């Protein structure tokens, strides 16, 4: 037996979440239609900059953000980009998918009460950094780089959905929880909800599988490759965002994840060396 105190999830919360998952009765946010359409188009052979920009025109907020990011110094723009088509060309079709999903999750998708808004804000910001770290971990471990971004981006999106559900539950039962009371619940229950979100957005299966097992992969015989990848990327992101004084050190990283991904100290150090730049890119993307 380990020494960690047992995780206590208030029974009403556990019962409610389990029921909702079982009955497929979760209130999952919808991916904006434009994002859905871009995802679909990009999976077909017909995707080109013109068609994608036509779709993007349908959502002012997403289109505006794509323009802003295309013109940012981080995307290497030397001349001013003035059309959406040009922006798509600059950023690349595959990156547009990542970007559009990222922009959607950074927007007003998760309506939670004021007391939990800081949590959602943190999740959003950390998710972007995790997504970028996940790409680099994938590159180093020869895993799929495109999938890794979405795995990192969405790995914690079960949390705001759970908070929305708790809000509803509080209203219904008159219970009132503070963050300390429910943090264990969030940690334990968010992964299954996040996986369900990926399913409802029709994302490729490895994304949901990795998100679902991000916290319990150590116990699996054959864990999905993305699960330790998310673990490691989110840990790098957490350290990078947590303490501005200290650089991210490879010694602080989860040995189990490193072992699972076959990453050695020099490779871990290389990953840690990228964090400043990734945090900067994430800030640009998320601003």
């Amino acid at each position, binding site marked *: 037996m380990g020494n960690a105190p047992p995780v206590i999830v208030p029974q009403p919360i556990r019962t409610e979440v389990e029921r909702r998952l079982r009955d497929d009765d979760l209130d999952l946010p919808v991916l904006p239609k434009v994002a859905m359409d871009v995802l679909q188009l990009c*999976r*077909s*052979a017909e*995707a*080109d*900059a013109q068609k994608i920009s036509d779709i993007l025109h349908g959502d002012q907020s997403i289109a505006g953000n794509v323009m802003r990011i295309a013109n940012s110094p981080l995307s290497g723009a030397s001349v001013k980009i003035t059309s959406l088509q040009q922006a*798509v*060309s*600059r*950023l*690349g*079709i*595959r990156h547009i998918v990542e970007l559009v999903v990222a922009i959607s999750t950074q927007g007003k998708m998760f309506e939670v009460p004021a007391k939990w808004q800081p949590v959602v804000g943190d999740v959003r910001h950390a998710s972007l950094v995790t997504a970028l770290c996940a790409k680099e971990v*994938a*590159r180093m471990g*020869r*895993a*799929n*780089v*495109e*999938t890794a971004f979405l795995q990192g981006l969405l790995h914690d999106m079960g949390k705001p959905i759970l908070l929305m559900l708790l809000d509803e539950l509080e209203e219904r039962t008159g219970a009132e929880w503070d963050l300390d009371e429910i943090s264990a619940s969030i940690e334990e229950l968010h992964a299954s909800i996040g996986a369900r979100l990926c399913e409802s957005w029709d994302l*490729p299966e*490895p994304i949901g599988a990795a998100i679902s097992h991000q916290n319990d992969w150590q116990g699996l015989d*054959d864990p999905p490759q993305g699960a330790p990848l998310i673990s490691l990327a989110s840990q790098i992101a957490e350290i990078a965002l947590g303490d501005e004084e200290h650089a991210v050190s*490879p*010694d602080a990283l989860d*040995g189990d994840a*490193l*072992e*699972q*991904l*076959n*990453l*050695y*100290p020099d490779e871990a150090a290389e990953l840690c060396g990228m964090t400043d730049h990734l945090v900067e890119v994430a800030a640009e993307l998320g601003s």
Partner: protein
Amino acid sequence: MESTHYDLIVIGSGPAGHKAAIQGAKEGKRVLLVERARAIGGECVRHGTIPSKTLRQTAVQLSSIRERLDGLSTVELSDDVRVASLMTRLRDVVRSHEDYLARQLDRNDIDRMHGRAKFLSPDEVEVQSPRGEAKVLTADAFVIAVGSRPRTPDDVPIDHENCFDSDSWLSMNYMPTSLIVLGGGVIACEYASVFATLGVEVTLIDKWPRPLGFLDEGLSARFVSSFEALPGCSFRGERQYRNIEWDGVSKVRVELDNGDVVEADKLMCALGRVANVQYLDLDAAGVEVSNRGHVVVDEFGRTSVPHIYAAGDVIGPPALASASMHQGRQAVRHALGLPLGSSIDLIPAGIFTIPEISTVGLTEAQAIERFGGAVCGEAQFDELARAQINGISNGYLRLVADAEGRKLVGAQICGEGATELIHVAQMALAGQMDVDVFIESIFNFPTLSEAYRVAAIAVVKQREALLAGV
């Protein structure tokens, strides 16, 4: 206290290391196998033979369904078919192979360590785990079996997202519509023909005039014609890339030395492989490395340090799983003073393009060089009942005999089943038989093996003409 001394330490668990470790344990030695990756089996299982052949099997099945339907209905793959899901049984195949290899090690009481080894001296290695923990171990003998990795020239911008190497390629999770493959070797040609068969438009670019240049000209010509018969596929020989870049939108652009530009969704760089010696600190052990980066060994696999052996891809060609296993066993047998088995000359080459190609022994040109002449006989598959039944039209078998047209000295086969069929010739070569053996023997009917008889008759006819002075 746990001992840190072993009779034999093997570094790397691919085909060479795995067989070396088992050979040592079978002789009652205390053996440690150090492997950098978590799983056993090496590149062969993770990125090489096993996954590429599993993918190929899907492509072959698809193409045979297409052939059998003969235009009655079209079989196409949807755009977002994931490469991973095409390799239907890949995960299971890899898993069961890894389990099987691990069980073999356990049965033979071989200790295993997950970590990266480097030499501290000729008698000591340090093994570092991914967690950074290090352990020093000593042994009476070592086998270096660390294999190889893809060569990635600096001017090919490999990002594992748009431009892949032949290892990271397997992380792709959808089918591109078009693909550029750089290289004309076995790996380049195998992947090019598999993806072409799966409906991808493939451009194969190489600096040599023909791909698979080590083969008989006829075989590589047959490969090119089968490959180019597939829609959108072409071989661009005698072309060097000048610049490679991702266009920032959706295509990788390759500018060639003649000014042509080739574009595709993705690029795979298959420009050879380099030995994995980078972490070993071979200088500390005094082990010599060739100017091509391979560990230098003698005919017994012994390096410049007598108790350190090397086997497999790390010593250079032929860089085949089959040869690596043999080299691993031989190295340990020599280290332990055991009699050595057969020589390695007769290892067949199996090239799993579509159609398959396989060779053993000498080509016609090599035979002429060695014997001052050669007599060759061919059998076209479309003349055989079995090939007609199976719908195999594109293939042939060629026998190479000495200058008198008597002794078999080599065989080359192109066509489905070639890599199995070649073993008949290999046995005949091992037995130093005359080509007549194929005429005197009775084979099952209808089978592709009949091709041996047909080709041998062609050789004998020429021999008789030679004898008659015609």
